[in-house]
């Protein structure tokens, strides 16, 4: 790693103040992606601003139809939370399937969605559940938040404080993990809220995306059979040594069916 300065602010205001007037500051929110990236010298921030001591970014609270998870809540805590398991068991299962225990003990919800890796799990959960991302200055709907590969609607100095998930009637997540990294080759999150259904896909494309044809079919018949013949075009999907675009397109339908089955 190249040299950097390390800061541990106690408040959001202090963190924001540290972000201004420095060459290339980065927020540290678990570090399970940022630190390896710095070791590979793909990132060389001038300053690391560690959010772990900042108050107000922790905690899981349920209030009626909404479950709110603080930005610095670690994946293992979401997976083990009674509140999450009762309100949105599919989200607890998603968190419990991220990486491995070592990663889950450090990685955070805010860190994951701010990074917006095209193969990360949380973006699919946020988009399918129509979550609202709270920051130090505004609220951003998931449909507006995720812009593309490693891109979000966040301003350079904007800090995620938490995510509010509407509690669905039914939800399910299924992923085909890369056997080495456990990142999603393809992951599909399906959520039924009221009479509407949302289907979000991660791992397959350059960023998380919805599948309207599946959503319409599932809204009238919430069954795996209803989407068995619906496939996404392979044009523009990711293609690498782990799988071709056609393979990923096929996996989208397979994982969507499994997600629906797990939600029943």
């Amino acid at each position, binding site marked *: 790693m190249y040299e950097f300065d390390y800061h*541990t602010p106690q408040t959001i205001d202090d963190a924001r103040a540290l972000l201004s007037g420095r060459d290339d500051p980065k927020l540290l929110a678990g570090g399970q992606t940022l630190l*390896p990236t710095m070791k590979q010298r793909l990132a060389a921030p001038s300053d690391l601003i560690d959010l772990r001591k900042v108050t107000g970014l922790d905690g899981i609270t349920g209030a009626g139809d909404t479950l709110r998870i603080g930005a610095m809540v670690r994946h293992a805590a979401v997976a083990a939370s009674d509140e999450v398991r009762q309100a949105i068991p599919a989200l607890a299962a998603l968190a419990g399937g991220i990486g491995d225990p070592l*990663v889950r003990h450090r990685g955070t919800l805010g860190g994951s969605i701010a990074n917006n890796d095209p193969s990360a799990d949380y973006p699919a959960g946020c988009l399918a559940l129509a979550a609202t991302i709270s920051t130090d200055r505004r609220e951003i709907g998931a449909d507006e938040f995720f812009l593309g590969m490693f891109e979000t609607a966040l301003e350079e100095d904007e800090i995620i404080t938490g995510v509010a998930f509407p509690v669905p009637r039914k939800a399910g997540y299924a992923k085909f993990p890369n056997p080495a990294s456990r990142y999603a080759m393809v992951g599909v999150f399906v959520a039924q809220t009221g009479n509407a259904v949302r289907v979000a896909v991660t791992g397959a494309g350059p960023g998380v995306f919805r599948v309207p044809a599946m959503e319409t079919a599932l809204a009238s018949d919430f069954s795996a059979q209803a989407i068995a013949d619906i496939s996404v075009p392979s044009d523009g999907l990711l293609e690498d040594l782990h799988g071709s675009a056609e393979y990923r397109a096929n996996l989208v339908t397979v994982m969507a069916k499994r997600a629906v089955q797990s939600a029943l």
Partner: protein
Amino acid sequence: MAKFHVTATVNGEEVEYLCDPQQTMLDVLRDELNLTGTKEGCSSGDCGACSVILDGRLVCSCLALGAELDGAKIETIEGMAEGDELHPLQQKFLEEAALQCGFCTPGFLVAAKNLLERNPDPTETEVRYWLAGNLCRCTGYDKIIRSVLDVAAEMRGS
């Protein structure tokens, strides 16, 4: 650049050290505290050779910073045996030959110890799921998994 002055508890003993921001927890353990039992494998969070327990949670020490450990409680492989008496997991790994080259072994032992402290009666699936972040290129895992399950049963019996 100013160094950070850190006071932490490692294997029950209070330690003090100075470190640069870019030194990882692994760098500090090995280079500042001379605790070389914890190994550097991939240094990117994939292999688990550097597994330690930080405030009760299993983590990759290569993906934490030395500067963030002020007040932390850390457990490493060096804290497993009591004097000359090996931890039951260490003893079982030897008896069952649950290692070949041995480079991953400290990580596996620390991870398995953390598992049994949380869950004294894990299923084979739970053991495999817990050790998913620890890679071994020699054994094929079977002897490791069996050793952990055997020790869990013995520790419950005693």
